[in-house]
C-alpha cells in the first residue's frame, strides 16, 4: 500500500479544516510563525584572510555597548550589550518569568520591557533598565509608572500580528491580572487594535509631545512597529518624533493570537531590516534614531547579522523564554495533556505552560524559580554576546556596531535580494546590480 500525501492538503491542513468544522472559530495559539521563511540563516559572514585582518580574542577588545535615545532624551539608555528583552506582558507570562527576565537583564547590563498589562513592582525592582510600553489597550497605564520607567515604547504593532490587538484568554485572567487590567476575572480579554486617543502619525506626533511633557523630556521614546510597509512606517516614526524605532518581523512571537494572523501577515525580519535602514539613511537619521530589530533572533549569528545590516541592537522574546525552559523536555505528561510534545509546543494561550513560564497557575509557576531562570537567561545572553564578538573579531571589528553589509554574502537569490547583499560566488544583487 503506497500512501501519497497531497502537498495542497497535507495532514496539518486537513486537521485544521476538521478543527474549524468542529469549533466554528479561528485557531488561537502562541509562539511565532512556524513556517519556513527566508532568514538570517541564508546570510554568511566573510571572515578575515589576506585583505582583512582578524582581532585576537581577549585583550584585542571587541566592544558591545550601545546608547539608545540620543535624539531628544535627556537621559538616553546605556546598554552593555546590544541585546534587549522584548515586551511581554505580565498576564501572558507569570511573575516568576518576569522576575527571571529582569534579574538576568540587570546582570548583563541590558533592559527588559513591560507588556500589555502594565508594570509590576517585581519587574521594576528586578530590572535595572525597564522600558514601559504604551499600547492600544492602555491596561494599567499610569503616570507614576511612566515616570519611573527608563524609556517609553509606544506600540503601534508587533510582528506576530501587525494590525491586531492584544489577546488573553479567560484561564489566564486571574484576580491579580484582572485587577491590573480593570477587567472581570476569568473572561476572554478583547483588546483594541488602534490607540484610543490618536490615529495616524500626525496625531502620534502630538501624543509623543504629551508623553515628553509628562516626563519632562527625560526619557527616550521608542516606537514599535510590526514589519509590513517598513519604508513608510520607519519614515513616519522618525517624522513623528521617535528616538528609537523597534521593528518586529513576522517571526516575532506572541502568547495568543489567531494562527491566520501569525502565518499570513507581515514580512520576515530579513527584508525588514534592510528597508528600515534604507529609510533611516534616506532621512539622514541612521544612528541618530536607533533601530532595534526583533522577530526570530535566536543566537549570536542572527544578532551580528542584524547589526551588520545596520541595526543598533536586537531584541529577543521567544528565545528568552526558551532559555527559561520553554519547550524543554521535562514534565512530558503535561505537554501530552495539551496535545503536544516538547519541541512542538505553542500552547502559551492555554495558560497551562508545563515549565511555568507562560502561566498564572501557582503550581505550574512554581516550576520556574527566578534564580534558576535568571541563571539560564544570563548564560544564554552571555553565549550570544560571545558568539557576536567571535564573528565581529573574525571580520576585524573592535566594536560590534562596526559590522557592515559588506561583511556579508548570501546563499540564496531571495536572501541576496532581501538583504541587498551579493549572492555568494558572484557580485550579483538581484534588483540592484
Amino acid at each position, binding site marked *: 500500500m503506497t500512501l501519497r500525501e497531497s502537498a495542497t492538503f497535507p495532514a496539518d491542513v486537513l486537521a485544521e479544516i476538521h478543527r474549524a468544522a468542529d469549533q466554528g472559530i479561528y485557531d488561537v495559539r502562541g509562539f511565532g510563525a512556524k513556517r519556513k521563511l527566508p532568514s538570517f540563516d541564508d546570510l554568511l559572514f566573510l571572515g578575515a584572510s589576506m585583505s582583512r585582518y582578524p582581532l585576537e580574542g581577549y585583550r584585542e577588545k571587541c566592544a558591545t555597548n550601545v546608547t539608545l535615545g540620543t535624539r531628544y532624551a535627556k537621559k538616553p539608555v546605556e546598554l552593555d550589550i546590544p541585546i534587549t528583552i522584548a515586551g511581554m506582558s505580565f498576564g501572558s507570562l507569570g511573575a516568576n518569568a518576569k522576575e527571571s527576565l529582569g534579574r538576568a537583564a540587570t546582570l548583563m547590563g541590558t533592559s527588559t520591557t513591560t507588556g500589555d498589562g502594565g508594570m509590576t513592582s517585581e519587574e521594576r525592582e528586578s530590572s535595572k533598565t525597564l522600558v514601559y510600553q504604551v499600547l492600544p*489597550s*492602555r491596561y494599567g497605564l*499610569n*503616570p507614576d509608572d511612566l515616570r519611573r520607567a527608563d524609556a517609553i515604547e509606544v506600540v503601534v504593532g508587533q510582528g506576530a500580528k501587525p494590525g491586531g490587538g492584544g489577546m488573553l484568554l479567560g484561564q489566564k485572567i486571574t484576580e491579580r491580572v484582572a485587577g491590573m487590567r*480593570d*477587567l472581570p476575572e476569568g473572561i476572554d480579554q478583547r483588546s483594541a487594535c488602534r490607540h*484610543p486617543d490618536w490615529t495616524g502619525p500626525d496625531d502620534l506626533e502630538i501624543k509623543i509631545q*504629551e508623553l515628553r511633557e509628562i516626563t519632562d523630556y527625560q526619557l527616550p521614546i521608542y516606537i514599535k512597529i510590526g514589519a509590513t510597509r517598513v519604508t513608510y512606517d520607519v519614515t513616519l516614526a522618525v517624522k513623528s518624533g521617535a528616538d528609537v524605532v523597534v521593528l518586529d518581523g513576522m517571526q516575532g512571537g506572541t502568547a495568543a493570537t489567531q494562527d491566520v494572523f501569525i502565518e499570513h501577515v507581515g514580512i520576515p525580519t530579513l527584508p525588514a531590516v534592510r528597508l528600515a535602514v534604507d529609510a533611516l539613511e534616506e532621512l539622514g537619521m541612521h544612528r541618530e534614531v536607533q533601530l532595534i530589530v526583533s522577530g526570530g533572533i535566536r543566537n549570536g549569528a542572527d544578532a551580528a547579522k542584524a547589526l551588520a545590516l545596520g541595526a543598533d541592537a536586537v531584541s529577543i522574546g521567544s528565545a528568552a523564554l526558551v532559555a527559561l525552559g520553554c519547550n524543554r523536555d521535562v514534565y512530558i505528561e503535561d505537554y501530552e495533556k495539551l496535545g503536544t510534545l516538547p519541541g512542538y509546543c505553542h500552547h502559551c494561550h492555554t495558560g497551562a505552560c508545563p515549565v511555568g513560564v507562560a502561566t498564572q497557575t501557582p503550581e505550574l509557576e512554581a516550576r520556574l524559580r527566578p534564580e534558576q531562570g535568571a541563571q539560564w537567561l544570563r548564560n544564554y545572553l552571555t553565549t550570544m554576546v560571545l558568539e557576536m564578538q567571535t564573528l565581529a573579531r573574525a571580520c576585524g571589528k573592535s566594536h560590534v556596531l562596526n559590522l557592515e553589509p559588506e561583511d556579508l554574502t548570501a546563499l540564496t537569490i531571495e536572501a541576496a535580494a532581501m538583504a541587498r547583499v551579493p549572492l555568494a560566488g558572484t557580485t550579483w544583487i538581484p534588483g540592484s546590480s
Partner: protein
Amino acid sequence: MTTFDLDNDSLRDLNGRLHGDPPAKVKVTNAGGRHSVAVGVDADIEISIDGHVGYYCAGMNKQATIRVNGNAGPGVAENMMSGVVDVSGNASQYAGASAHGGTLIIRGDASSRCGISMKGIDIVVAGDVGHLSAFMAQTGHLVICGNAGDHLGDSLYEAIIFVRGEVGELGADCIEKEMRPEHYARLESLLGAAGLDFDPKEFKRYGSARKLYHFNIDHADAY
C-alpha cells in the same frame, strides 16, 4: 495666584512648574488651541485655563482640579487617575480616553468616542455625545444628559452608562438595563458633583449583555 500667558510663556515652563512643587492656584491665559496644557499634574491644586485648548489637556491628571473656560480638543483628561476636569464648552473626540479615576465634566457636547476604553473614570456630559462613545468601556460611569450617537457602548465591559435623551443604534453587547435604587442614587450623586440639575428619573441605564465575554460562534455576527 500664579499666571502663565501662553502667548509669552512656554508650554514647557508651565508644565515644568506644575510638576514638582506647584503653587496652589494657577491661571493659564491665551490657551490658543495649544496641545498638552497642564499634563501630568500630581498635586491637589486648582488650575484655571482661559481659551480653547488643543489635544490632551489635563492628560494623566492626578488630584488636581482643572477648569477649561473654552472648548477642549481630542483626548481631554486622557488616562486621568484622580481629580476633576471641568470643560465649560465642548470636547472633541476621545474625551476621558482610558482614564482610571476622577471626574470629567463637559458642559457642552462631547464628540465621538467619549469615554473610549474608560477604566474607572466618571464622565458627566451635559449635552450630547458622538458615535462610538464608551467603546470598550471597562469600568466607571458615563452620564449623558443629551443624546448619544450610534454604536454606544460597542464591545462594552462593566462600565455603566446613563442616558437622558435619545440613543442611536446601540453598540455590540450593549443593552438597556433596569434602573434600581442604587443606580438612581449613584446618578444623583454624579449629577450633583457636576452641579447639573437634571432629574435622575429621566435617565435610562445601559450596560453589557456579557455575551462577548467568552467567544461563542452563535455571536460571531457581533464582530
